[in-house]
Structure formats: C-alpha cells, structure tokens
C-alpha cells in the first residue's frame, strides 16, 4: 500500500477524530433557543454537504456514461447515489431529532426541509427505476438520463426557490442563531475540518462500494461463463 495514493484516508480519519472530540468539547457561543444544540452544526449540516458532493459526483459520471457508454461510469454513478442517500438519511435523522427539541416538531413546512424531502424522494425513485429494468445497458442509459434530469430539478428546488421565502433554519429569515457573518470563529475551526472530513468519508465509502460492485460483477460473469 503506497502512502501516496492513500494519504487522504489518513487525513479523513484525523479530521473526523478531531471533529468528534473538539465538536463536543470546545466552547460554543450561547444563543437563545439553540444553546448547546448548536453543536449539531458539525454533525447535521455536514451530512447535507457530503450528500450534495456525492450526488454531484454521480451526475458527472452519468454524463460521462452517456458520452462514453463505459460501464464503470455507470457503477460509479449508482454507488455515489446509494452512498449519498445514506448520508441524506443520516441528515434527516440528525435534523429531525434536533428540530423536535428546538422547534418542537419532528417535521415542519420549511423550504429547506421540502428541498431535502424532494431530493430523497427523487433519488429513491432513481433506485426504484434501476431495479425495475433488467438489461444492464438499458438500465445504465435510462437511469443516467433520469439522474441528470433529477439533479437539475433538485438544484432549482434547493437553490432558487428557498431564496424567495423565509426559513426557520438558524441564520435564515428572522431566526436566532448564526449566519455566515456572525458564525463564531470557534465554530468555524471545527465546522470546516468536519466538512472536509465527512466529504472524504463519503468518497471513501463510495469507493469501497464501487470495488465491491465490480467484484460482484466479475464473479457473475465468471459464473455465466462456466
């Protein structure tokens, strides 16, 4: 194992260790309502960022699949979605437990929550679509098309529409909390490393899943040849 190829995994581990320790131990600004739950910034918001990065990887690979018809791009695209959906579920869980204790409800009609729900539904639909087509190449092509379409619509939904309404989220609308300007430098010292750490973790999980899938595929091919 050469260190040159795998250094980023070590970086990922170190950053996550740092995130978990510092995330629970550092002094955080005391905000009304938020109080200590402000630490959820390190574990909830980072999930969504990782998900978006994974979905971006997926859509890029879908575009590459359509232009090259190379099966390995399709495997990357689908495993990136699977990992992204996993991160999305974690984001929903951490978010809704937090919301129960700060907003008083598990789910609210908030622009960002709607965006999250739409994203999850669209990508679960992507997985259903993949399972409903038998033939490998057809499956790859059709799901790539849907992936690109869904990604663009999702960008509109989470990028454009929330700007036209207020949000309950801290730092948005008239809510107590931080925004990009008054986010404490202490918070940033953990938030940015946490962000990079979780994104790297997502990519790492995705790579492992891709390798597993490729082994499965080659085993299946051997079985059919015998």
């Amino acid at each position, binding site marked *: 194992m050469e260190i040159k190829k795998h250094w980023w995994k070590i970086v990922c581990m170190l950053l996550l260790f740092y995130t978990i320790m510092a995330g629970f131990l550092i002094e955080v600004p005391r905000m009304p309502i938020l109080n200590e739950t402000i630490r959820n910034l390190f574990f909830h918001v980072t999930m969504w960022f990782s998900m978006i990065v994974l979905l971006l990887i997926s859509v890029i690979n879908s575009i590459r699949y359509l232009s090259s018809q190379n099966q390995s791009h399709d495997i990357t695209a689908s495993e990136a979605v699977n990992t992204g959906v996993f991160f999305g579920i974690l984001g929903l869980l951490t978010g809704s437990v937090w919301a129960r204790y700060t907003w008083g409800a598990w789910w609210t009609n908030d622009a960002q929550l709607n965006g999250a729900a739409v*994203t999850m539904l669209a990508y679960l639909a992507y997985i259903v679509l993949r399972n*409903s087509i*038998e033939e490998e190449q057809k499956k790859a*092509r059709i799901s790539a*098309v849907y992936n690109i*379409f869904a990604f663009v*619509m999702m960008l509109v*939904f989470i990028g454009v*529409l929330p700007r036209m309404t207020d949000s309950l989220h801290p730092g948005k609308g008239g809510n107590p909390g931080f925004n990009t300007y008054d986010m404490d430098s202490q918070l940033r010292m953990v938030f940015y490393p946490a962000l990079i750490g979780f994104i790297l973790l997502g990519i790492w999980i995705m790579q492992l899943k891709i390798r597993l899938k490729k082994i499965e595929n080659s085993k299946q091919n051997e079985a059919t040849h015998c």
Partner: protein
Amino acid sequence: MLLKEIKYLLWQELKLENRQRFAFNGILLYVISTVYVVYISTKGDTQPQTWVSLFWLIMLFASANALQKSFVRENSNRYLYLYTLSSPQGVIISKIIYNGMLTGVVSLLTWLVYSVLMGDAVSNKWLFLCSLWLGNTGIASLFTFISSISSKSSQNSTLVAVLGFPVLLPLLLTLIRLCNASVMGVSVADAQNYLYVLLALTVIIWAMAYLLFPYLWRE
C-alpha cells in the same frame, strides 16, 4: 426540416386521437368524477386556499393518468417504422406540443366543472388563466418526458408517479403560490416574479427533454 417533421408527427397524433376518441372522453370522465368526489367529501364548502390545492391535486392526477400512456399508445412495430423516418428531437417536441394542447383543453374543462360545483374562488381571472396555461404546459412537458423514461421499464404506471412527483414539486409549489395570489386578487404585475420562475422552469424542462431524449431513444 425539423419543423416539417413536427407538423407531420403532430398531425399523426391528432389523427390517432380522433380514432381513439374514448381515450379523451375517458380523461374527461375521470376529471368530472374526481371533482364530484371532492365535492361530495367537502360538501362544496372550502377555504380559498384549500380550493386551490384541491384543484391542482385533481389536475395533477388527471394529467399523470392521461399522459402516462403517451409512449405506449401505438403498436410498437408501427412506432418503429414511423420513428426510423424521423429524428428524436422531432418526436419529443411534437409529443410535448400535443400533450400540452390536450392537458390545456382538459384543464379549462376541469376549471369549468370545478367552479360550477365548488364555487368560483378566483378574483383575478387573468392571473389564474396565465398560471393555468403556463403550469399546464410545464406539467405536460414533464410528464411527457417522464413517461418516455418509464415506458422503457417493466412497471410503467406506478413509475410515472414515483419518478414524476418529486421532480414536479418545484413547479407545483410555484403554481399553488401563484393561484393563491390570484384567489386573493393580486395583480399580474405583483405576481410577476412567480410567473418568471414558472416560465424558467418550463424552459428548463424543455431544454432537458430536448437534450436527453435522443439517449432514451437509441435502442
């Protein structure tokens, strides 16, 4: 060249529709009976906001039902023959135009039946008509594209809803806001922003359909 093709394909669609008139009548009957179910269950007494959301729910399911068959309507051998002659862009554009016209007619009739039974809540008719027309064009284009995706898989009918509804939500949310504005009597100039968003969404859907459909087409 493309224009001629679209005109020809559109003509084919209309001829086919004329031959299978029961399909259109079926959609109309579907809409009328759904409106009646809504009328019975709400006793025709609703808040304006509920009025708007029920109207769009009916429209949504009616167009999902009407358009899910748009790529499996004809005999597949005839399709193959017809479409070896024309380009995929021509096919998707003509389908979108045709389905837009179809749902346009259906939506106007739905509005008529709905406002007769449920009372007319709209105070700015022009804004409502504008959003009805723009929204229907968007919904029709989206379902046309989605049904071309789902027609390639084995379980067609459920897949249209599963694939279509999540990506439709941005459009629907804007539409419901616009219609709420029209119910409250907001002027067209004040609701301009939402109209632009609706238009932009529709154009995005067209662009995606135009670019991506050739890949679905290649068999």
